[in-house]
């Protein structure tokens, strides 16, 4: 089942590209010219994105390197373990929505220390795999289209 899914993932992109280009030729769309026009738009998006992402990543870097985030985690750890939440994965739970790279390194560490097939290893794997980095998603999607106010009035 998994191998089958992996094969689909590998084939999906090239097949999609082929289908799009084939349809374009059939419908007599000037494919290359249109592609270049769209590409320019993509370039504009990434230029618009840079200041948003840079600002956010710098703020996160300051918070992490100062040790403030770690201090917060060790403060909240006993609270979480008192409700039965395994203290070992508490840092992961807090880092996962904030920083993708930090969460990934914590997950690797847990897997390395406790083994991938231990309860903690599987728990960390599930936590890492089942969600995305909230702050990154918001920054990229809002940044690329120039939304500055993240909430509705």
């Amino acid at each position: 089942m998994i191998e089958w899914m992996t094969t689909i993932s590998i084939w999906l992109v090239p097949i999609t590209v082929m289908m799009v280009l084939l349809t374009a030729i059939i419908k007599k769309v000037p494919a290359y010219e249109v592609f270049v026009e769209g590409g320019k738009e993509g370039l504009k998006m990434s230029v618009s994105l840079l200041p948003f992402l840079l600002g956010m990543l710098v703020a996160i870097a300051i918070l992490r390197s100062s040790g403030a985030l770690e201090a917060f985690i060790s403060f909240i750890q006993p609270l979480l373990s008192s409700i039965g939440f395994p203290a070992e994965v508490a840092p992961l739970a807090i880092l996962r929505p904030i920083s993708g790279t930090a969460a990934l390194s914590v997950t690797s560490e847990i897997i390395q220390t406790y083994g991938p097939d231990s309860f903690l290893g599987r728990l960390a794997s599930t936590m890492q795999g089942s969600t995305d980095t909230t702050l990154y998603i918001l920054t990229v999607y809002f940044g690329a289209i120039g939304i500055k106010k993240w909430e509705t009035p």
Partner: protein
Amino acid sequence: MINIIWAMMAIIGIVFAMFNGTMEQVNEALFKGANEAVTLVLSLTSVLVFWVGIMRVAEEAGILRQFAKMSRPLVKRLFPEIPQDHPAMGYILANFSANLFGLGNAATPMGIKAMEEMKKLSQSDRASNSMITFLVINTSSITLIPTTVIAIRMQYQSAAPTEIVASTILATMIATISGIIIDRIFRKIRDR
């Protein structure tokens, strides 16, 4: 609110560093963070130029309109503000399917195009209801195969690297459903 969150992250970090003796690390991290952002945007640029280009071709060829029609029953309920057969619907479906198959690379440009179409509808620099619902679903990440985690598990000689797929799908589903419910509650409060 984002202005305060952003400023507070930096302020708390710097004040904490004063007492923690980590000012040197903070000073270093400032520029490393900025560098990291440029590298990240550079790698996103190639993906964005390629996929937005391909999607423009798909749009001109009428494939996107077809996609929008197909997605109507599902997307209509989640995004009642988006008019029928609007291109945003096509992009939303494209983004969801790319996420589902673990094509994060392709999912982001499609999602950004969806956001752009939603921005055309709202004509404001504020987040709209549809945008919020869309991002809630995206952050809870509807994925079938968590490829990165499986790779790490393989690296550390797991006896069953893919064993976590079922629990991951279950966790994702719960997160997505909870996200949608919470979004609906907040929407009710906002609209009142």
